[in-house]
């Protein structure tokens, strides 16, 4: 498998494994994500989600297996992977002592957008987020919910093929989370694949498909309704709790 992305597959993971010494954090996981899909990547803390993501975004080399993101191999073409993805970490990724505009300009510049493009995107972005009056305000003094929407918008500023969101909605109110998911849908509808981890199981219901990771393995994968049917559960939360408990008991 060389060359560009095969058809509509944005992420192709095959037997991806990462060991730290004798501990296997990620144990031969395999899955595909289609272009424009909103893919929920669930798992309890310590299940190996973060390690898996770090491999997919080119920060960590796999011990075994392979993964292609946006058509590029994460192990051998990490630079090309980085150029074609966006990333929003669970820790806040904007600079608090810079203004909204400066943050946008910084990331636009890093991803190689031209000055005109940056100016145009900034205008669109503050318009969409209703941040017109705060464009020259330092990020530290705008509310958390807006910061997160801004962080997301900055992560997709360069129109990446795939955007990775690592617990993007931690600590915000339900209304803001709702608005955040609207942004996610808009982005996915425009063709960007969204790969998202979350602790909120109601959010998992918003995803096109979800995978549930327990102890380094993917134990369930499917659309939310498929999973609920399969495990005879009312909500994804129930599915998750049952699987996570089984994993812990093992």
């Amino acid at each position, binding site marked *: 498998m060389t060359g560009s992305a095969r058809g509509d597959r944005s992420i192709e993971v095959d037997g991806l494994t990462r060991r730290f010494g004798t501990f296997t954090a990620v144990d031969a996981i395999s899955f595909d994500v289609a272009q424009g899909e909103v893919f929920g990547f669930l798992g309890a803390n310590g299940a190996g989600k973060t390690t898996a993501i770090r491999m997919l975004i080119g920060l960590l080399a796999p011990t075994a297996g392979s993964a292609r993101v946006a058509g590029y191999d994460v192990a051998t073409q990490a630079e090309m992977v980085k150029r074609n993805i966006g990333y929003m970490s669970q820790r806040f*990724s904007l600079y608090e002592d810079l203004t909204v505009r*400066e943050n946008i300009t910084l990331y636009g*510049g890093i991803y190689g957008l031209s000055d005109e493009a940056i100016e145009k995107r900034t205008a669109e972005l503050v318009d969409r987020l209703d941040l017109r009056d705060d464009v020259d305000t330092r990020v530290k003094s705008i509310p958390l919910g807006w910061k997160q929407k801004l962080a997301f918008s900055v992560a997709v500023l360069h129109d990446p093929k795939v955007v990775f969101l690592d617990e993007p909605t931690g600590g915000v109110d339900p209304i803001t989370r709702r608005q955040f998911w609207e942004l996610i849908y808009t982005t996915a509808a425009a063709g960007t694949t969204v790969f998202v981890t979350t602790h909120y199981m109601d959010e998992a219901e918003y995803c096109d498909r979800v995978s549930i990771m327990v102890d380094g393995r993917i134990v369930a994968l499917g659309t939310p309704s498929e999973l609920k049917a399969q495990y005879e559960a009312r909500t994804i939360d129930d599915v998750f709790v049952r699987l996570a408990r089984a994993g812990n008991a093992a």
Partner: protein
Amino acid sequence: MITPRKRMRRPPSTLGAFVTKELHHILRDRQTLAILLLMPLVQVLLFGYALRTDIRDLRVAVVDPTPDVATQRLRTRLAATARFRLVTVSPTTKVLPELFQRRTADVAIVLPTSFASTLGRGDTAQVLLVTDASDPNTGTTMQVYVRSVLADFERELEGARPRAGAPIIGIASRMRFNPTLESANLFVPGLIALVLTLVSALMTAISLSREKELGTLEVLLVSPLRPWQIIVGKVVPYLVLGFAITCLVLTAARIAFHVPLRGSVTLLLAESVLFTIVSLSLGVLVAARTSSQRAAMLGALVGTMMPTALLSGMIFPITSMPGWLQPVTRIVPARWFIVIARGIMLKGIGIEYLWRETAVLAGMALLLLVAATRSFHAHLD
């Protein structure tokens, strides 16, 4: 291993955007910036006054066993010198130990018996200078002052000199408490080294580990920026800041203390930049190997500031360190920089005499830059 198949040309704005952001950080953190700019000035003043090379109110004791016209003239002359204060005139040297121990006199001039008649015969009159050299720097300076007054006195006698050839007054001097004197007026080169280490190593380590702590570094690493670009973006602003502070220290030292700059300013500044690069790389190394701002700060203090202050020869001469310690100082970058800065500033020498030290610094810079980039890359997982 990262082996990009195809290298795309990235517009220069990639790195530019990053440097701009770093400048914003520095300029917005006014408190830190004020400290960074003011501290060197305060240090120049403190060091300058603590190691003052021009001494006022020098307390002079004269031992004059046989007062006569000549000794009287010399004493008047000493008393008339603005810097001197004649504290006591005694017929015997017996009082001297106590005078020095009580610190009531800084320098004693022991005149020979029958001073006037010796001078009258045209013989050399032997004068003994005893100086409190518990602080060797002031000790030397005090001796220089007294010698210059004696030299003036000698010139005054020149006209009445019956026999040419022999010196009129032979001066023997004795430095009490510290017979091996180290030269003074060396604090500014050392201070530049210290301040540059502080700005470059400490500040870079803190700023880089802050991004690590906040998680923004992760976002940068996921971006198309390469590790070396992140490092360059991080260090360039501090390089500029370090350069500005070097100029500030030099100007302040010149205005306040008339510290000489005999050699090439360009060479000195170029060498400062080289030394800054070494320090910056050390800062990056420290940040890469620590996981919190606090640890990075401690690491930078212990790993760079302390060696610079203690092992560079800035304060404690390397030649008076124990034998096993002397080779250790060779790995301290500031040691080489201080030799260079002193050479340029005080001796006015150029690269022809300093290429060896410069080569050592350049080697260190290269080695540390590679190590820092590698370490930075390896320690992020």
